[in-house]
């Protein structure tokens, strides 16, 4: 990819710049699409149409909303901590954008071939909870602070099952680099026709994926785990006091986070950029297509769940994590390790 860019751009910082904003472009276009999709999914699930006025079936609704948001006044509450209040949305987005470095978007594109790969993603996304606490505290609002507190508790708890399920995949792959993990899943070996994705590797991998998906739902603060911003009890949680583009950045972060966690799930379990039809429709560009398509399917499942399940209470949330997910993920880890030893 870098060589390809160097062929028509003057070498040096410009190449690095273009190289590093490719994920940003993908996130921005994806966010425009996903916010529209979320509203359409919500509408159709509740037997209504969703946005219909702006363009064909309301496709330009998000663009119109964005234009409105840019024009809004940037309000900082009088008693808020100005500096931290203004800083928090940027750290939030930086944390989720930083994680895209280690994700192989296609066979020709990965931000950095670092050896620690998925471990780095886990570490950098933990900055997100810090930024939410920062936003909640700096807003000087009880709802915001309560939302921030819940986030801290939730993220710290749900990080454990996420990391343990990732670890159980790492036992199988033997590497943390997501590019190598994806390359391992090339081909259609299982039963002659199933793609050699890790989810088909053993029955316990299916359980691992289930646990991983539930834990990432909580990490991304999606319904049924959206306690940090549960609007019926906390008004808007940590983003109560935010308006205009700063609120927009939080929204962008939320959607970027959904995509990020879906892509991690896709890379770890569903073959990443590999085509499901073996060598049919293969290559760097098709790879990016498959990767984003698989990611969007998981994002769609997240939206689907949002309009299906009711929100959990705080104690139910903690019970689910500490009493069910963590023991299950540890047992599953041991079982996968045993499977690896025997077969």
């Amino acid at each position: 990819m870098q060589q390809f860019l160097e062929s028509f751009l003057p070498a040096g910082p410009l190449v690095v710049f273009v190289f590093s904003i490719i994920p940003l472009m993908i996130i921005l276009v994806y966010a425009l699409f996903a916010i529209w999709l979320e509203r359409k999914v919500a509408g159709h699930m509740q037997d209504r149409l969703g946005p219909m006025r702006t363009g064909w079936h309301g496709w330009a609704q998000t663009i119109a909303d964005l234009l409105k948001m840019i024009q809004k006044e940037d309000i900082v509450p009088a008693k808020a901590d100005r500096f931290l209040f203004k800083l928090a949305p940027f750290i939030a987005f930086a944390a989720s954008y930083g994680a895209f470095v280690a994700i192989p978007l296609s066979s020709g594109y990965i931000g950095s071939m670092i050896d620690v790969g998925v471990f780095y993603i886990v570490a950098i996304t933990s900055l997100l909870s810090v930024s939410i606490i920062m936003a909640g505290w700096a807003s000087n609002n009880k709802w915001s602070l309560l939302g921030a507190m819940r986030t801290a508790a939730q993220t710290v708890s749900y990080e454990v099952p996420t990391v343990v399920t990732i670890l159980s995949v790492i036992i199988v792959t033997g590497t943390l680099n997501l590019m190598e993990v994806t390359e391992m899943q090339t081909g259609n070996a299982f039963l002659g026709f199933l793609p050699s994705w890790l989810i088909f590797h053993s029955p316990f991998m299916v359980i691992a994926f289930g646990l991983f998906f539930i834990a990432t739902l909580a990490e991304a603060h999606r319904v049924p785990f959206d306690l940090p911003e549960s609007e019926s009890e906390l008004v808007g949680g940590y983003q109560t006091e935010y308006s205009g583009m700063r609120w927009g950045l939080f929204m962008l972060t939320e959607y970027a986070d959904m995509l990020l966690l879906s892509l991690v799930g896709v890379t770890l379990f569903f073959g990443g950029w590999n085509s499901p039809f073996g060598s049919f429709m293969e290559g760097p560009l098709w790879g990016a297509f498959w990767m984003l398509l698989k990611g969007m399917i998981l994002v769609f499942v997240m939206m689907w769940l949002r309009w299906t399940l009711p929100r959990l209470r705080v104690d139910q949330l903690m019970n689910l994590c500490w009493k069910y997910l963590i023991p299950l993920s540890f047992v599953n880890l041991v079982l996968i390790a045993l499977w690896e030893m025997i077969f």
Partner: protein
Amino acid sequence: MDLFAIAFYVFAILIIGSAALMVFSKNIVHSAFALMFTLAGLAIFYALLYAGFVAVTQLLVYVGGILVLILFGVMLTTRGYFEKVRTRTVNLIPATLFTAIIGLMLILVFVTTDWTLMPLEEGEVTMTGLGELLLTDFMLPFQVAGVLLLLAIIGAVLMAARTRPPQQTPNPQQTSPTEKQQD
């Protein structure tokens, strides 16, 4: 000046500045957030020295874990949510004396040591190598650290569980008066 040196000095200024802010800030939450920048800056230093694993661990453990817990603790233990989280300066004279002595010692060590600069090269430390080392040559320290952490967890659970009254009433909302009686 190459890119490495520029990065080094920029982040060195960030680390020292935020560390100073952490110490001199009167607001304890500001101190905690300044600490975040110090710790994250140190992670960048490790990354600059090709110690990727250490950098990521620093970020995960200190910024993602310990800092969140510190913030959580500060916000939960202070009585007022916003106004009363202030720090005070106590023991001014002994503290000044000790820091002066320690500072002098550090400067003395820094001046007298014969520093040799190692040429920086892209490390051969891989995750696989690290894992093998941990499970062969450094097995005992690794296990001892694990046992220590387990003890700490059990201790924390014990301390947290001791104050709770026996669950007799099925309704959790009515346990708060009995809690006071036991205390």
